[in-house]
């Protein structure tokens, strides 16, 4: 048998968690980072959603649990754990139990490549962008399976709708991501952030721009497609409560329901983080502005601890800004109809993103 000697070429830039010479400590630190991100940031996003939605609807949102109601989602989590775990008699029990996990694990794995600051990531894959998109495409298996295993017609229809929706909106999402990769010349998420810090339009040299400015169309497509991928209102036909009770989640209770919910919030964070990386300059404060305490690569790499802290805070602030936009869209717009949804994707977003890709590719080659 062939001896496979490992000299992996996977990782690009070193993570600040690669401390010491050992193997175990960096891995433990990275696992802690990914799990910490996965369990804390989505809760903050959820709290933001509760509060913002409340204010927009002339309510106050949660106020009782913790200061300003900030521990409401923690309390909800404890409540979910205590609830009875009901499994319908006709359900396919192993599949019913497996489905929430199958949806949750990909949402967790995406956090592996999300860069929060210079060196603040678990791993910088050469194929980071492709990895993130490939992993998110698996979540739909769990949703389809949950809808089918519940042995409930509302769940089945909800699962089917979710499947059709996720397939339809994956295309514009991936095509737009390819467009950004063409502009950046790399698939590494850290590389894309660096490329934006050095990006200028021809004729405007010395005037740094993020990709969102030349790619405002791409950003809009990505934003809409991301909301649809997450089944967030106004794209929540799979769980449309006026028609389908609660879609594929109808029969789920307690901790399993909480897992589906956590998947949604984690997806909201990862999609926002991807948008920050692809379009909004990652951890750069403003276009052309060097972060204090940083030296390399347009003032966003090789930072001292203060610079790293500022970078992480900037990234998180941008992510929360995008979450705010998503909540705003949720409050402002009514739910689309199923045919309208498919129409928007296949007749508007896909042709638009293809034209955008062709345009950008030709310009990149010509200029």
């Amino acid at each position, binding site marked *: 048998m062939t*001896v496979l000697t*490992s000299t992996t070429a996977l990782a690009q830039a070193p993570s600040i968690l690669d401390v010491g010479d050992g193997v175990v400590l960096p891995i433990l630190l990275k696992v802690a980072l990914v799990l910490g991100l996965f369990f804390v940031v989505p809760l903050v996003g959820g709290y933001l959603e509760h509060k913002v939605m409340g204010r927009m609807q002339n309510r106050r949102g949660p106020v009782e649990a913790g200061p300003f109601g900030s521990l409401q989602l923690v309390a909800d989590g404890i409540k979910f754990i205590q609830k009875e775990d009901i499994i319908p008699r006709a359900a396919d029990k192993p599949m019913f139990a497996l489905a929430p996990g199958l949806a949750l694990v990909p949402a967790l794995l995406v956090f592996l490549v999300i860069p929060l600051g210079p060196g603040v990531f678990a791993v910088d894959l*050469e194929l980071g962008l492709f990895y993130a998109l490939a992993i998110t*495409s698996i979540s739909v*298996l769990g949703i*389809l*399976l949950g809808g089918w295993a519940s042995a409930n*017609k509302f769940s089945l229809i909800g699962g089917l709708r979710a499947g059709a929706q996720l*397939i339809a909106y994956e295309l514009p999402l991936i095509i737009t991501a390819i467009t950004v990769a063409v502009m950046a010349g790399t698939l590494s998420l850290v590389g894309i952030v660096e490329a934006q810090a050095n990006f200028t339009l021809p004729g405007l040299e010395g005037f740094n721009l993020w990709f969102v400015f030349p790619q405002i169309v791409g950003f809009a497509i990505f934003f809409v497609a991301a909301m649809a991928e997450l089944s967030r209102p106004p794209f929540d036909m799979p769980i449309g409560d006026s028609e389908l009770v609660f879609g594929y989640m109808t029969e789920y209770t307690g901790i399993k329901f909480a897992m589906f919910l956590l998947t949604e919030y984690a997806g909201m964070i990862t999609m926002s983080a991807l948008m920050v990386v692809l379009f909004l300059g990652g951890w750069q404060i403003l276009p052309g502005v060097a972060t204090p305490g940083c030296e390399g690569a347009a003032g966003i790499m090789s930072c001292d601890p203060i610079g790293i802290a500022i970078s992480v805070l900037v990234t998180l602030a941008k992510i929360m800004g995008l979450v705010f936009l998503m909540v705003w869209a949720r409050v402002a717009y009514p739910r689309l109809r199923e045919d309208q949804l498919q129409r928007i994707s296949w007749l508007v977003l896909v042709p638009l993103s293809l034209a955008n890709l062709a345009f950008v590719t030709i310009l990149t080659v010509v200029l």
Partner: protein
Amino acid sequence: MTGLDVVFVLVGLLTAAGAVLTVTSKNLVHAALALAVTLAGIAGVFLVLHADFLALVQLVVYVGAVAVLFLFGLMLTRAPIGREALDSQNRGLALAVSGGLFVVLSTLIVLAFGDVRVDAMTGPGIDVIGIAIFAVWVLPFELLSMLLLAALIGAIVLARREDGESGEEAEVTRIEVGDPPINESDGPPAEVAGDGQAELPAGSGGGGQA
């Protein structure tokens, strides 16, 4: 045995177990899920062999799209909800075909690559792969994309129903603004002309418009 060898064997076993489950499971949806496990396992094998780009392609195409389409199609058409079992009657034929394929493929692979030794394994970078596909092999690539396009158009043509090909149009009761509620127990449907419903005597219901 290095750690990678152990992982390789484990992933291979998982893939094989998924494949066996795919053909032995009596529930269609379980079989489709086992197929997804097999396809994901193959991605794992690629990953262990440092073909990381291939592994991700395998994930996004086969697990994220093909397996999902399988499940989607099954649920739309003939998946029994809950716990029910179906069985195919073609076991002998399937065994013969798959056994023959296995023998042919494994013989070919051993003959072709049996004495190749690769010691230091690093997959080629994505830039190398990109140049290989779009510069060296661009013609076969374009041919393949034409083939896929033809298959796509063919699928659409097959799926589109021409007029008068598949059964009759179902009769549709159209509800228009101003129609009175239809009451089937009342006598023969009254003629409805224009907006004249208001003049109908009370209780005679309305017209069932075909």
